[in-house]
């Protein structure tokens, strides 16, 4: 069958076979690891093809091969019915593939426009054609209906805005195949909707999209077919209407997983944290809420709604311009993370790569960084390696972190395990209040479930938590009550019953306000 198609393609160039991309027995080895093992599947023109699998299943490696970062050790890539071996990123772009990588590939010191057209700048004679660059960028951004000035420097953008620039960049290629690796990770609900609209138009224009995501809801919302990888091997390709989430999850994990997002609300009456009319100029306005022992407070909101800054303020990173914070009834003034930690506040940041892990350091050293002072002899002078090991082992057991040995560099761990180590780091400083920013971003389904279970267990142990997430199901499922931010103000303070997607989105977009009298 395939052979025939190829023959036709050779004989009469006019006709072309339905597959834009055809992978045959792709394998890739790294020192000690078999990242990809004879993976073959295909993507047809104008289809949205989802690629799912746990972290370490080989998705990223596959993408990097298609993007021309690596080249496969064996197997063939048929792209647009030609057998291509991508020499470098430039080559793959030329051939008509554009990739949106999970970790951003933007140039902070350059403007949005330059970032979109870097490497392919339109020229007048030898010189840049600035006007054209800016106009084209504007056009694309309008398509995405994002209001961004093309001349603004990328370093001044928020995570979500950066994501949008990445997407704009990918669109600007007029590529035959667009690969999106976790494109929605940083986006809030309605931005995701925008993205989907664009993907549909692309699809209509006959562009194929390879959509990689951990969020199965979105996968089922947008994809035509789903390919599952596990441990570098191809498992199956299904069309969405032949399958359902449970099955896909089973295929990904290789085992059944009890339903996600469930929190049995058991929290006591004693208040841990109460925030009264907190203000930060042009960022937060009159935010106030209560948090009780073992309660989980969800925080929802669009990008730039101030939800992240709220967390950073609680952790002493941003100074308050007004309002009070009480911890267990005592008024506190938190001016640095150090003080926050001493007050028993733990923090898991939203950007693991740039804000959390120490890539050169070992798992052990990463985990104990916050509590070194306590792991010492002789009045905090000499480190007590024995205690250090012990505390690590405790948390390894409690959080079921998987690593080869305590001195393995954390960079070699999977996203899920890294996140667990970071949770352990936060918990180790025996904290009563845990601030979680996007705790499951870029984490595979299996680890995600584990982390949720963990959060549950912590809540039972009486740890109060603030859960900031752009994944509504997560918020609705996990939290006992939830506040919704809109332009730095609280637009909603919902209890368990009021928490529905419509309510939250309504508040987030500023169309309604709920429960502010509380």
């Amino acid at each position, binding site marked *: 069958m395939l052979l025939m198609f190829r023959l036709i393609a050779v004989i009469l160039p006019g006709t072309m076979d339905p597959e834009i991309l055809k992978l045959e027995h792709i394998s890739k080895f790294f020192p000690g690891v078999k990242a990809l093992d004879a993976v073959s599947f295909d993507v047809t023109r104008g289809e949205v093809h989802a690629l799912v699998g746990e972290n370490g299943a080989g998705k990223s490696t596959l993408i990097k091969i298609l*993007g021309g*970062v690596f080249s496969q050790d064996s197997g063939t890539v048929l792209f647009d019915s030609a057998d291509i071996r991508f020499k*470098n*990123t*430039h080559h793959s*772009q030329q051939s008509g593939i554009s*990739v949106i*990588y999970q970790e*951003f*590939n*933007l*140039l*902070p*010191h*350059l403007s949005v426009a*330059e970032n979109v057209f*870097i*490497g*392919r*700048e339109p*020229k007048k004679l*030898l*010189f*840049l054609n*600035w006007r054209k660059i800016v106009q084209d960028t504007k056009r694309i951004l309008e398509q995405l209906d994002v209001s961004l000035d093309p001349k603004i420097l990328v370093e*001044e953008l928020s995570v979500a805005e950066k994501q949008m620039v990445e997407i704009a*960049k990918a669109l600007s290629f007029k590529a035959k195949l667009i690969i999106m690796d976790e494109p929605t990770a940083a986006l809030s609900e309605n931005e995701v909707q925008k993205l989907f609209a664009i993907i549909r138009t692309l699809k209509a224009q006959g562009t194929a999209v390879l959509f990689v995501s951990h969020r199965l809801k979105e996968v089922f919302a947008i994809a035509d077919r789903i390919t599952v990888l596990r441990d570098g091997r191809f498992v199956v390709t299904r069309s969405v209407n032949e399958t359902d989430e449970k099955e896909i999850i089973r295929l990904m994990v290789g085992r059944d997983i009890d339903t996600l997002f469930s929190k049995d609300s058991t929290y006591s009456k004693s208040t841990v944290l109460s925030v009264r009319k907190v203000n*930060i*100029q*042009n*960022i937060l306005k009159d935010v106030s809420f209560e948090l009780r022992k073992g309660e989980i407070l969800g925080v929802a909101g669009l990008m730039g709604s*101030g939800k992240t*800054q709220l967390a*950073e303020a609680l952790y002493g*990173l*941003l100074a308050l311009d007004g309002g009070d914070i009480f911890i267990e009834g005592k008024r506190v003034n938190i001016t640095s993370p150090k003080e926050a930690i001493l007050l028993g506040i733990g923090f898991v940041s939203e950007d693991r790569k740039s804000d959390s892990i120490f890539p050169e350091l070992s798992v052990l050293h990463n985990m104990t960084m916050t509590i070194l002072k306590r792991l010492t002899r002789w009045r905090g002078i000499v480190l007590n390696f024995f205690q250090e090991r012990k505390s690590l082992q405790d948390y390894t057991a409690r959080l079921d972190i998987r690593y080869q040995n305590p001195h393995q560099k954390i960079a070699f761990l999977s996203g899920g395990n890294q996140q667990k180590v970071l949770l352990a780091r936060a918990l180790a400083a025996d904290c009563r209040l845990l601030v979680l920013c996007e705790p499951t971003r870029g984490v595979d389904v299996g680890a995600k479930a584990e982390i949720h279970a963990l959060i549950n267990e912590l809540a039972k142990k009486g740890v109060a938590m603030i859960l900031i997430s752009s994944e509504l199901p997560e918020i609705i499922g996990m939290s006992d009550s939830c506040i919704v931010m809109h332009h730095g103000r609280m637009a909603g303070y919902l209890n368990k019953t009021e928490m529905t997607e419509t309510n939250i989105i309504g508040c987030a977009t500023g169309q309604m306000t709920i429960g502010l009298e509380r």
Partner: protein
Amino acid sequence: MNQGRFWKLWERFGLLFVTLVGIIGLSLTSPNFLTVNNFKNFINQAAVVAIAGAGMTFAIASGSFDLSVGSTLALAACVGAKTLIGGSVAASIMASISIGLGIGILNGLIITKLRVPTFIATLAMMTIVRGIALIYTKGRDINVITEPSKEAIYKFFGGGYLFSLPVPMLFMAAIFVVFYVLLKHTPFGRHVCAVGSNEEAAISSGLNVDRIKLIVFALVGLTTAVSAIIQTSQLMGVNGGTAGLGFELQAIAVVVLGGTSLSGGRGKLFGTMMGAILVAIANNGLNLHNTPIFYQYLVLGLILLLAVSVDGLRSKFFRPAGTWAER
């Protein structure tokens, strides 16, 4: 916000302002400062550093810098001078230029092909090239005494006048205009900034980072060679061992003084030029006031520290709303 405006203005014109203050101060304190002759002197002195500084600005914009320029200057000058004694002016110019380019490209190759960290690569080249210069000249001075006609032509580069303007100044102006266009209005220039801004991103955006770096270091070598020619034609001689000692740090200093940050991604060429002029004026002024050499070190150091501290404080106190300090 108002403060924001002030800082923007300061970023633009701060250095110019300081320089003017210096000029005014000096012309008040020493009668001979504000003379055409003296102006020519310090502009010529500035040109030598500034031109190499232009190349260095590119290197720093691409997120690295070159410690070997001092030695490169020495070798280029030596070879140029030797060839001038033997052959024609054109030959000597070509010799200097090709030496400069050669070393620049060699730097580039070591960094891109052998993957040696820039700092170390150029540090090593600094000593190696110096050694070569010494061996080449057997450690002796080269003293250019040739027939007046040839000397006259060669002297034109360092001491001559065109439209009653000193030639080195014209060289400086020309090079800076060209480099400015190159940096701001050509793809290459933007790619240089891209590499300095985030190398991995530049690679995955399909840029040929190695080639860009190679060209950047070639440019540094080229500009250094031009500086070498100007200096040699001023001195009509050179010593391979002592020429351009500590020149590399001076060049970096003027670039930074001009407001280009070592973290890469940006380049402020005219700042570099102003920086060079400011330093030249400072030294000139101190000499006019008959100050011992070591006070010149003191002043150079203090100017540098003050200039960068101002920027540092600015970035410390005025950061985008809702972001937190990283120190």
